[in-house]
Each structure stands twice: as C-alpha cells, then as structure tokens.
C-alpha cells in the first residue's frame, strides 16, 4: 500500500496551488474577452470572494470564476442577484460545492428557458 506523508501531501499541494492561478487565468481568457491583466485581477478577486463562500477546490473555483466573469465580481451584491447569494449561503445544503452546483444548474436552466421562449415568442410563433 502506498503511503503519502503529510509533508509530501503539502509539497504536492503547494505545487498544485502555484499553478492554479495561471490555470484559472487561462480559462478566463479562453472563454471571455478579457486581457491578461484583467483576467489576473478577476481571478485574484474571485478567489478571495469564493473563500467567503467556502469554495476552495479547483473545480469550484473554475465555476465561480465563470460566474464572476459573466456577472461581474460583485454579482452577489446586486439586488437582482439576491437569489444567487441566497443559494450560495443556503444552510439547507450541507456542502458549499453543492450550493454552487445548484446555482450553476439554475442559471443554465434559466438560460435554456429564455432561449426556448425567444424561439416561441410572437410573431415567430405565427410564421
């Protein structure tokens, strides 16, 4: 059986963590029209904000950065997004990652409903 000591784990995690910022910036630049500087600023702010919602792992950070890039870094302070903050702090969901899962799922659902409704809106419906 392979045993990894705590010290080894910490060393591995540090290496992983050092590259995380760059990975997130590359991800943002791939999908959003932001400069390198803007991406770096966004990722740094998003990581700080994500921590306030107990979101730390790489998968969660990718999704949280998506959210910040799309809605703005202060998305959770906007009155129209109060429901997002509520979901991210929902005490009836044990895991912070699952709270983010639910939020992402809800946003995708809303986007699909909007696209569907746009297709069926008059006058297209009459054609």
């Amino acid at each position, binding site marked *: 059986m392979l045993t990894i000591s705590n010290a080894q784990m910490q060393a591995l995690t540090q*290496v*992983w963590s050092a590259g995380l910022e760059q990975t997130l910036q590359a991800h943002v630049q791939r999908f959003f029209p932001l400069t390198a500087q803007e991406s770096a600023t966004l990722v740094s702010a998003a990581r700080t904000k994500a921590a306030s919602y107990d979101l730390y792992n790489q998968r969660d950070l990718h999704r949280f950065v998506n959210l910040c890039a799309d809605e703005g870094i202060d998305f959770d302070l906007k009155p129209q997004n109060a429901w997002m903050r509520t979901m991210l702090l929902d005490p009836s969901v044990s895991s912070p990652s699952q709270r983010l899962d639910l939020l992402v799922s809800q946003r995708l659902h809303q986007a699909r409903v909007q696209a569907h409704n746009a297709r069926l809106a008059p006058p297209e419906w*009459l054609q």
Partner: protein
Amino acid sequence: MSDAAEAAASAQPPIDSPVIACPNRFALEALVLGEDGQPVAGVALELRKGSDCLRTRTSAQGLARFEGLDAAEYQLCPTELDAEAWTLTGQEALEQAGSQVKADWSAVDQAAAPEGVEHRVAAEDSVDRLALANGLFPETLWQHPRNDTLRSTRHSRNVLAPDDLLFIPAIRQQTIAVQTKLRYVIKRRGVPSRLRLRLLDSFKPLANIDWTLRVPGEATQQGQTDAEGVVQAWIGASASSAVLSYLSNGALRELDISLGALLPGGTAGGWRQRLLNLGFACDAEDQQPLSAADQQAIRRFQQSWGLPVTGDADEATVEKIRIVHDGRQLPASAQDKPVQGSS
C-alpha cells in the same frame, strides 16, 4: 447568462488535486418529478445516518446527489414536505455510483416541529399556492377538518376571498430507507398546478386552434384546444399571471390571465370578474348603485340565458353567472345552453 458563460460552464473542469483517492465511497441520488413528469427544483432532502445528516436540494434537473457514503442503508427525508405531498415511485441503478468526495455530515436538527397556523387569506392567495409554499398536498390542506366551514362556503379551493380564514396544518415528515448506488424517483404530488380554460366565441367553442401560453419565468408552452375549446396546461402553483395567445378568425388574440385572482362567485367582485370573462362588458370595479354599463351587461346576460330581464344583480342571476362561468360544477339541471348566441 452569456454565451461565453454557457460555454465556460460546459467546459470540463480540471481535476481538483494532484492525488486522486480511490473511489471506495459511493453515492445515491434522488430524482424529484412533478405530476407532469417534469423535474421539480429546490426540494430539500436530508440523508440521515443515526444522529447525523447530509442536506441538499434538488437541482433544476430535479436531481439531488449524496456523495462520500459508505455502502450502507440510510434514511432519506424530504424535510420540507408533508408525508402526503410525495410518494416514492421507483428506483434504478446509479451509473456513476463511485464517489471521491468527502461527506460533510452534521447533526440532525432537533428543533420542535412547527404547529399549524390559521392563515388570513390575502388577495391572489389560493390553496394550491399556499400548499406549495408550505410543503403540503393541496387536498391535504383543503380537506383538513379545521377548514370544513370554509369549504362549505367556497365552491373551489382556488377561489377564496380576502380575509377568509384557512387553517394550514403542519407538515408530518416521513422517511424512507435508501441504499447507495441507487437513484430513487420521487413524485411531488400536487405540483405543478393545472390550468384549464375554455375559449368560446359567441358561446361556440374555439375548437382545435393553436395556442401559446407564456408564464413569467417558465418555459413557453404550445398546444391546441380540444373539441370543446379547452386549453389545458401545467403551470407553477406560484405563477400569478399568464398570457395566452391564439388565433381566432385569422387574428392574433392575447389574453392576460390573473391566476388566483378569481373571487368567489357570490361576491360583487366575483360576479363582475365572471361576467367580464364571459364577454359581457361590465365595470371591473364594484360600485353601488350599478352603472348603466353594469345594468346593460346584466340585461344581456339575463336575456341570453332566459332569466327575467331586470338589469339587477339578483341572487338568481349571480348564481347563474357562477354556474355558467365555473362550468365543471354545473348541476345536471343547469347544463343548458344560452337562449341565443351572445357576446
């Protein structure tokens, strides 16, 4: 959500750690569907193991997943639903049953169960809406013995008057035994609500015509009226308005529908709403004495249905308006037709 954000959300996130644990833990899922077979989002679920629990809610796809579990038996409880508001309809093997996530157990909430409350009905309240908000099956709420008196005076659970007193009972939690590596399918009873509307032109059904129903926040639906001109659709119980579009005689008609706003037929506001819905143009606001428009509308209605033409909103006329409008509650003797096409 922008296209870029949708694309970014669809991208496969990278692995979380340089070290991947063996998937020696498992998951189980619950899928909650409504009466229409569509996913129900936001249902609170608790997975219990002794005095500990995991909590989550169903996603927009109706799914809730519990991960990081030992292969064992657990108790699953929809914590915000009454026992009559849901039922287990099936289970199936879970394809991705392995889990690398660590379960974050916490203590089961031991707070005392809330008691029922007497609710003073507000404008646009309906039993369906209140049942949804309180985790109840609508008929559980409506048939509660403490609502006997109200039930005897109102013909429909969704036609209440402001200041009616409705008893909302407390939910009674129920749990089921569940195991890992399975997905449990749960039906949320009484959700969504059913909208039924009959389209008439001069009291003749608008049969087999295309319609489109738009409800804010919901997916637009399309369909066709049946031979009786009836539109039937599922809508969220919390919806308060809808727009029905249809083609009549080649012209697009749009009908704004206020959901849950219909007053009891015996009230002044109630007969006005029904008279307007039936196409008799009276004033929308209640007033005494009746305006000329009110009297004219009532006369036309009375004439159409062979009643003494008085122009007064007398008891017989108001009851006839209710019966004609509310349709499905027609007593056998009243299933008559108008004397002549009108409206």
